[in-house]
């Protein structure tokens, strides 16, 4: 779950591959607009088709535990307190206190000013701290403020940074600005992993999702993430499908793996399993790992725990037996 030296090295080498493309605004636009268009109907039908798979018994138990290990347990509210972040961090380490065999989540995801609190509670547990930075969720701030926001979170101990792209620049076609921004934020991240949030609910078309995916991967993002969770629609199956195709194709071309994180609106075990089926079928089993696929979620975890309890005890559980987030 920590950044590996090999992935950082390959990022550096792949930067060379794309030098020609990112040389100028026009060459970058030519490349992004030259990507094959997304067949909207076909994409939605494929996503809906994959969502009909029935996953039962041992496969379901495996999927539930894997999904728990992939959760970035998130609280991004104006009303967050240090106490709430401490409670959330405790829950991330031991999601089901009644069952020691229940795995920990991948990370907790908080605002930068809460990173120190989360880090203090998590200690050496292996659960990472992810911080949203760069004027999350709108991304509307001056560049130096975004970079200061990022450095602040990294200095406080964040293992992962979730940045938002400037959707205004992206939609008005200033792709190089977005590229430069990601590159600079990545520099500010140092050793911390960088996740790039597109806010796909604002990108309007599937073609734009594909372009944003390539842009972020070329700029060196370790993860591409659908949404902030503050805009509807947040993560959807078709959008995640396009992003999974992008990371698959990117590995085919460069040998470098990039992770995917759908966030927002994934509330039930059934939803989570649909995503896992899609990861396996589109990107491949290599991505079925918390290092390469995450769920940005808060309410999802309780549903996973209830389903897990149902599978181990044979009777339905209820929300009374798990903490409120």
């Amino acid at each position, binding site marked *: 779950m920590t950044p590996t030296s090999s992935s950082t090295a390959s990022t550096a080498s792949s930067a060379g591959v794309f030098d020609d493309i990112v040389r100028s605004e026009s060459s970058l636009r030519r490349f992004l607009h030259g990507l094959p268009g997304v067949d909207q109907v076909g994409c939605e039908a494929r996503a809906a088709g994959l969502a009909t798979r029935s996953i039962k018994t041992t496969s379901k138990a495996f999927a539930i535990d894997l999904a728990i290990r992939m959760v970035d347990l998130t609280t991004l509210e104006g009303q967050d307190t240090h106490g709430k972040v401490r409670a959330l961090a405790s829950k991330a380490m031991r999601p089901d206190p009644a069952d020691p065999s229940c795995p920990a989540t991948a990370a907790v995801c908080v605002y930068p000013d809460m990173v120190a609190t989360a880090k203090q509670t998590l200690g050496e547990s292996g659960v990472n701290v992810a911080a949203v930075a760069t004027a999350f969720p709108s991304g509307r701030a001056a560049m130096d403020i975004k970079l200061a926001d990022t450095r602040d979170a990294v200095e406080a101990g964040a293992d992962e940074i979730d940045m938002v792209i400037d959707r205004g620049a992206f939609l008005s076609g200033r792709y190089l600005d977005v590229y430069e921004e990601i590159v600079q934020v990545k520099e500010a991240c140092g050793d911390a992993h960088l996740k790039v949030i597109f806010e796909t609910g604002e990108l309007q078309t599937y073609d734009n999702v594909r372009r944003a995916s390539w842009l972020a991967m070329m700029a060196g993002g370790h993860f591409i993430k659908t949404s902030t969770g503050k805009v509807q629609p947040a993560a959807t199956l078709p959008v995640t499908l396009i992003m999974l195709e992008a990371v698959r194709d990117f590995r085919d071309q460069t040998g470098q793996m990039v992770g995917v994180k759908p966030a927002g609106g994934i509330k039930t075990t059934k939803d989570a399993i649909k995503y896992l089926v899609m990861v396996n079928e589109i990107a491949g089993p290599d991505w079925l790992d918390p290092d390469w696929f995450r769920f940005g979620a808060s309410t999802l975890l309780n549903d996973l725990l209830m389903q897990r309890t149902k599978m181990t005890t044979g009777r339905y559980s*209820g929300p*009374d037996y798990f903490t409120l987030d």
Partner: protein
Amino acid sequence: MSRIDVRKTYKLYIGGQFPRSESGRSYVVNDAKGRLIANAAQASRKDARDAVVAARAAFGGWSGKTAYNRAQVVYRIAEVLEGRREQLEAELRAAEGISAAKARTYVDAAIDRLVWYAGWADKITQVVGNANPVAGPFFNLSTPEPSGVIAVVAPRGALLGLVSVVAPLIVTGNTVVVIASQDNPLTAITLGEVMATSDLPGGVVNVLTGSQAEIAPWLASHMDVNGLDLTGVEDAEVARELEVAAADNLKRVRRPAPDTDWLLEPGLDRMTRFMETKTVWHPIGV
């Protein structure tokens, strides 16, 4: 030209909607003479699970309404039932093979029963609650509060029996998942239609049709169900097993009463069995 029959599809009643069983199953319902009346949905354990989720979601809003308001809603069910009495009488005659006069008696009694329970909504606290005398400067007040989600195995009486087990639970603020009588499920769904059109919020009453033996154990062991009413269970061994399953989260259980004469006045027990007494100490004169 003869008109084509418009046949009715009887489905489940869950969360204010009328879905088919997620399992896609149905079963044949015959009239008293063994002729086909219709197919009914055969609910699975997952339908029961969905029904509990709907009932739990509805509990906060329903128990939070004033008792006066709940009375009005239950009275409204009686009003709407009165308007559909011909349909219900015809259904009862077909399903149970009884005379027109007898069917009318049962429908009358079911409507009267709803009105009777509606009247109790804002009186039950006064009757079974209390201001307790204590040796100190305190008010000490006991009030009954609803238990939560109650799973009910309904008795055979297709209309009156069902109304008699459901009405006392909802006037007190509980929400209900009821497994309708296996042999006479159709009236239960018609009653669901009555409830769906009488200001009763979706999820307060959820009706499942199908095999009681299949669904009841899942509700009995469900950790998010707070009470279990076994009125309609006819097999003593089955009742014992359900009671054992219900013990894990200390559900309140009502034992079977298959031979009840539903035309008699019911008393308060069906309301008070699924209420918890809350006692509050409050200092005097501070």
